[in-house]
């Protein structure tokens, strides 16, 4: 176990290193510096700016500098916002995004689990068909389409919910539903198929043969084992939630990290793009790692190697 964890940790570090390097060189492969893009600056100003941000150094030195900064968890200054560092951007935006993401996971689980369980227990009946129909819709329709349609119906036509911002609890409803649509459908489908598989196992027959009530069979014996595949996909699911929230945050003008990321793309704010990418990647990798470890703790049958 310890060996496995150490191996995984080493691998995570390697992956992060590759990601940081790739991101750095990708960003620097863009023709023109960050200040040459829109208005033509006087050459002296441009030179001064380049000097200020160390852009006049050879690329390799800049790279070493950036990596040194990364070791100290310093992502450098923002190019477009005078006096802001990328760290400050992340510290300001991430809590909001994380709250939105957390609520979405919670919402998806609360809706998906009962849906999946009902569908599995009523396999082939109308409840099953209905759930799978909803789930197919949820998986196929992109989140930005769901978000814009929800906004049109509930904010513009009915006026029940605000179109933007997270000032009150009402502001959370639409972003969470739009963001959770895919996750919810995916989890419900997974719950259904996993429960169906478990229900066909021998130990369920044993439990029934012992004379346990159907409720006890499902809750005590089936559900516990059926939940395991769900835990496995939770890591990648959180990953897709975080990246999916770029668009949702943009549509609903949520001042989270995703919004910053999209804005920094359109502003060509290279350090921020780099910083946020590395930050996201680190979180996602860590998330998969934690879930994997957790997975082994939950199901002792799984052996790590």
């Amino acid at each position, binding site marked *: 176990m310890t060996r496995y964890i150490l191996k995984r940790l080493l*691998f*995570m570090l*390697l*992956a992060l290193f*590759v*990601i940081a390097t*790739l*991101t750095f060189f*990708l*960003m620097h*492969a*863009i*023709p023109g510096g960050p200040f040459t893009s829109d208005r033509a600056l006087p050459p002296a100003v441009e030179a001064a700016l380049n000097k200020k941000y160390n852009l006049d150094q050879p690329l390799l030195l800049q790279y070493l500098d950036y990596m040194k900064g990364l070791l100290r968890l310093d992502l450098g200054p923002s190019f477009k916002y005078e006096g802001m560092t990328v760290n400050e951007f992340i510290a300001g935006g991430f809590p909001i995004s994380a709250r939105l993401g957390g609520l979405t996971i919670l919402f998806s689980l609360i809706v998906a689990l009962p849906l999946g369980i009902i569908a599995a227990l009523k396999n082939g009946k109308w409840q099953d068909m209905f759930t799978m129909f909803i789930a*197919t819709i949820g*998986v*196929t*329709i*992109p989140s*930005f*389409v769901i978000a*814009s*349609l929800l*906004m*049109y119906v509930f904010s*513009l036509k009915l006026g029940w919910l605000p179109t933007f911002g997270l000032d009150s609890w009402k502001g959370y409803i639409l972003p969470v539903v739009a963001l959770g649509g895919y996750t919810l459908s995916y989890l419900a*489908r997974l719950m259904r*198929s996993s429960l169906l598989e478990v229900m066909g196992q021998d130990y369920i027959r044993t439990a029934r043969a012992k004379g346990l009530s159907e409720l006890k069979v499902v809750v005590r014996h089936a559900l516990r084992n059926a939940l395991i595949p769900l835990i496995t996909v939770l890591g990648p699911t959180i*990953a897709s939630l975080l*990246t999916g929230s*770029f*668009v949702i945050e*943009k*549509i609903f003008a949520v001042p989270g990290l995703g919004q910053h990321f*999209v804005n920094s*793309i*359109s502003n*060509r704010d290279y350090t921020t*793009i780099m910083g946020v*990418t590395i930050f*996201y*990647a680190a979180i*996602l*990798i860590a998330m*998969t790692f934690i879930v994997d470890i957790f997975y082994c703790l939950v199901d002792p049958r799984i052996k790590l190697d």
Partner: protein
Amino acid sequence: MSEDMEKMDKWAPLKADAEEREKLWSKSLSFGQDVWYRFSHKPTALLGLILLVLLVLFCVVGPQMVSHSYETQNLDFVNMPPSFKAYEVDGRYIYLTPSLKLIEVAPDGTLMKPLARLEDDGMKKRMTFDMGDGTEIILNYKTKPPRLENAQKEPYTVFKSFRNKTYPLGTDNLGRDMLIRLMMGMRISMLIALIAAFVNLVIGILYGGISAYAGGMTDTIMMRIVDVVSTIPLTLYVILLQVMMGSNGGILSIVIALGTVYWVNMARVVRGEILSLKEQEFVYAARTLGSSTWRILTTHLIPNAMGPIIVTVTMLIPSAIFIEAFMSFIGLGVMAPMASLGTMCNDALSTLRSSPYQLFLPSLAICLVMFAFNFVGDGLRDALDPKLRK
């Protein structure tokens, strides 16, 4: 026949002639026929296939049948909805747009021309328009909703519903035809699907195939590379690549971005399949007979691994389409005047309140494309690999 059977002793050996014996056998099917049988007996899969064919026809043949071009702007007819109500004014039909313009409509629904505005009295909130033959009509926008009046301040109240004949699906906020833009947008989605599938197929099969077949150190190194690439959040990297290549690259850069990043799964699937196949007897047999490595790969290994490979491709296509729409939506996809379903959705957000159809149409198109590919993909998965059925 059945009555005879009942009269017979049930335990007597059944006497059947040669012809009847044949009937016990079902028709033997080739692999392709078998796949098609399973595919065509799944209603959603067939539905998806039909939908897909219709969509392809729509975006390939469609543009030839539309007289407008996707980039021509007609600023006279901005934000024209697909259907609308027009006032009847002295036997002529006048449509009042939400942006307070008057457009004359022919009785069959063809848009004719906007009326000339003579004066705009901002104080009284009244605009005067010339009907073209000297008569004047007045647009009173003090009231909500605004209304048309004649010179004696009597409002016109007779309406007639029209379907927009000039632009069957309306125009966008620059006066471009929605129908042709939808077709072009769908073309891009289909193109992306096609190229992404092809690129991933080629890279994935080559990479996975070489890795599995070479084995040993080469395999280890190649697979570690895959491991690292697969820990990278792909969406982020597609976005980064797109930023790097500059959005003026358009479709090409999206395809490159998708192609460089999304082959990882395919490589893993191919490697797994080939690893298990290459230990099987028919491969040993081929090797004993002296077949070259290349021949074994191309005639024995890859065709036998095709099932899971096709399944992976069909899973990949909807996600490629989604990524393109998503990137166009955040402003990194194809650039104007080219249309993509994602850019159309994004453009529509600013005029959502007054022209919701501009959002609904591309949204519907995206959903149809996604549904079609998902259904076909699911069907193919079940048909090619019944074990995977869920």
